[in-house]
């Protein structure tokens, strides 16, 4: 049902904008938001009372368990935030909002297929649907940086997809099926002929490469800063939240089904990837003067933290799932909030994004509430106690220690200490920066931007709720 809701809305809006040229942006936005609310509602119902899938005469290739429903909800929230935040952004630049909504909804559909698919073919096609819309969205601003982002993403993404496909082919060769849920049944079969296991590991390596690219983890992360910086801000929000979340959920599903065959072998690979990813992201983020680029590197670092869940997955699969989902949810909310704050920054008559750190100077004096909200998101990203980011990190590190990865947890904590430095820089500039820097007026000076402000307030509330009452959400995830 959630899938049909998204698909239906996407197609109706597509037809509407092609027939009715003057369809107002508000109407389309309301329709899209209604579809997203329907997704959340259906998923919530499904979560409470799992229904049995009706036999439709052909394999559905999808599992509707609580992992899929929760990831539907996360993806819908992420798309909602980036859609609403982009309303003004797109309107100011005179771009076509209808096509934008359609692309976001199609991307959401692809992401949902990915997160509920149990067949590698279905997952791959979902991934392609997601990526194809992402390539188009990256080039939505027709300036040089946006075009570069789109081309770069497309070429590298196509290469990554090819590698993933090669991995899927080897998977088929080793296991004789594209299904990833029945692999547990074949464990006996595979262990009897251990010789096949090497092919299986080869396919695992290639699949890790493909998904490592999509989740922007080291050593496949080189595209991320440029693409994140060049894309329009709301689209960057979407990349950092929905695309990443969908890739991680599909990745989780595939890897968790491989574990009976591979055992602890993949653990070492994930260990290395996790450590490299968070260290690279955090160290590079220190040197960035552009806040958008800094957030891109920080998103790499956060992918590293989530990878920790993959390290201890072979020991404790349930804890890994819960930690990963909670982290994805909080990361979605706080990143979307931070990017929405950046969207608010603009100068009268200037259409390009003002994301340099100097633009934040003395914001604390000019609009204290706005500066406060931005500070909360940055503190949350850094992982300070009363916010959601703290509990997400705490939970993932705690599970790592419980499963005997004390060294890994120590490395991760050191990394988050490094990250405090660069997250604090914008805060310091906002409150203590001099007013002498180029005079920049942000939006409260001209028109107050309701849609973006709404997103910021919503994200703020969610960050605080997740930070103050994490148990409620965790018990929901653990159902």
């Amino acid at each position, binding site marked *: 049902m959630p899938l049909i809701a998204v*698909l239906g809305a996407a197609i109706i809006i*597509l037809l509407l904008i092609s027939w009715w040229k003057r369809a107002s942006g508000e109407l389309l936005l309301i329709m899209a938001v209604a579809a997203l609310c329907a997704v959340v509602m259906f998923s919530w119902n499904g979560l409470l009372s799992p229904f049995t899938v009706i036999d439709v005469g*052909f*394999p*559905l*290739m*999808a599992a509707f368990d609580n992992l899929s429903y929760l990831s539907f909800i996360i993806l819908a929230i992420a798309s909602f935030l980036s859609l609403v935040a982009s309303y003004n952004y797109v309107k100011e630049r*005179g*771009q*076509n909002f209808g*096509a*934008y909504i*359609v*692309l976001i909804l*199609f991307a959401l*559909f692809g992401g949902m*297929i990915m997160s509920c698919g149990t*067949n590698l*073919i*279905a997952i791959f*096609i*979902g991934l*392609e*649907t997601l990526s*194809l*819309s992402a*390539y*188009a969205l990256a*080039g*939505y601003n*027709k300036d040089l940086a946006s075009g570069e982002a*789109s081309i770069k993403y497309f070429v590298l993404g196509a290469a990554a997809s090819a590698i993933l496909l090669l991995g899927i082919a080897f998977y088929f060769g080793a296991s004789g099926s594209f299904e990833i849920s029945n692999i547990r049944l074949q464990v006996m079969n595979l262990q009897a*002929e251990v*010789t*096949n296991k*090497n*092919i299986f*590991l*080869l396919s695992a*390596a290639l699949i890790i490469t493909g998904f490592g690219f999509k989740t922007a983890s080291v050593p496949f992360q080189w595209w991320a800063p440029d693409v994140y910086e060049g894309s329009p801000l709301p689209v960057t929000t979407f990349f950092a939240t929905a695309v990443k979340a969908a890739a991680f959920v599909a990745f989780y599903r595939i890897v968790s089904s491989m574990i009976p065959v591979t055992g602890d072998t993949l653990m070492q690979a994930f260990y290395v990837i996790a450590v490299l990813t968070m260290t690279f992201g955090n160290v590079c983020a220190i040197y960035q003067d552009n806040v958008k680029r800094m957030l891109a590197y920080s998103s790499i670092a956060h992918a590293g933290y989530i990878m920790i869940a993959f390290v201890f997955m072979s020991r404790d699969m349930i804890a890994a799932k819960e930690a990963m989902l909670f982290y994805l949810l909080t990361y979605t909310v706080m990143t979307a909030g931070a990017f929405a704050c950046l969207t608010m920054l603009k100068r009268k008559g200037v259409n390009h994004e003002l994301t340099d750190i100097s633009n934040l100077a003395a914001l604390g004096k000019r609009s204290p509430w706005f500066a406060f909200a931005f500070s909360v998101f940055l503190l949350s990203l850094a992982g300070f106690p009363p916010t959601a980011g703290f509990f997400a990190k705490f939970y993932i590190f705690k599970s790592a220690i419980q499963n005997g990865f004390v060294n890994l947890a120590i490395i991760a904590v050191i990394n988050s200490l490094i990250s405090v430095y660069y997250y604090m820089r914008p805060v310091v500039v906002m409150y203590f920066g001099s007013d002498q820097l180029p005079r920049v007026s942000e939006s409260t000076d001209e028109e107050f931007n309701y849609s973006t402000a709404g997103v910021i307030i919503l994200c703020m509330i969610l960050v605080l709720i997740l930070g103050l009452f994490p148990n409620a959400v965790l018990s929901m995830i653990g159902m």
Partner: protein
Amino acid sequence: MDISLAIFFVISAVTLVACGIVAFSKNMIYSAFALLGVFAGVLGLYILLSADFVAIVQLVIYIGGILVLILFAVMLTTRIDMASGERRLVNKAMEPLAAFFGIAILGALIWKSFFSTHWTVSRVFYGPTTAAIGEKLLNEYLLPFEIISLLLILGLVGAMVLGRREVK
């Protein structure tokens, strides 16, 4: 020596040589034409594997469609045959180094796994496969098949979004 084995080696050699020309030729047009050899070689391999449908698709789409498109693109672009292919790199050693590591890692993985596997050889059955593929597509793989049609719509929408000029 089996005759099909000999044919296999001949086709592979032709394909690999054509691949080399595509990759290393200085002239863009030579590369484009050598691509014909690559596609034709792969087509031969498909036939050897008794994949008749895939072979025909390869002929129609790759040789008939994509190759012709590439040739058109090459010929309609001015002075592309004089493009030397030189790029400004930050570090000249980076490119070969990256290629070397990529090939070495992937090659080692494939090498290791292939030689530790007992391959069971089955006799190739030469016969039409189209009907079986159609059955599979509309029964077992109906869902991905339908989603692919969405993917095509999406491709059109994306191309429209990126390609058209803004109307103010």
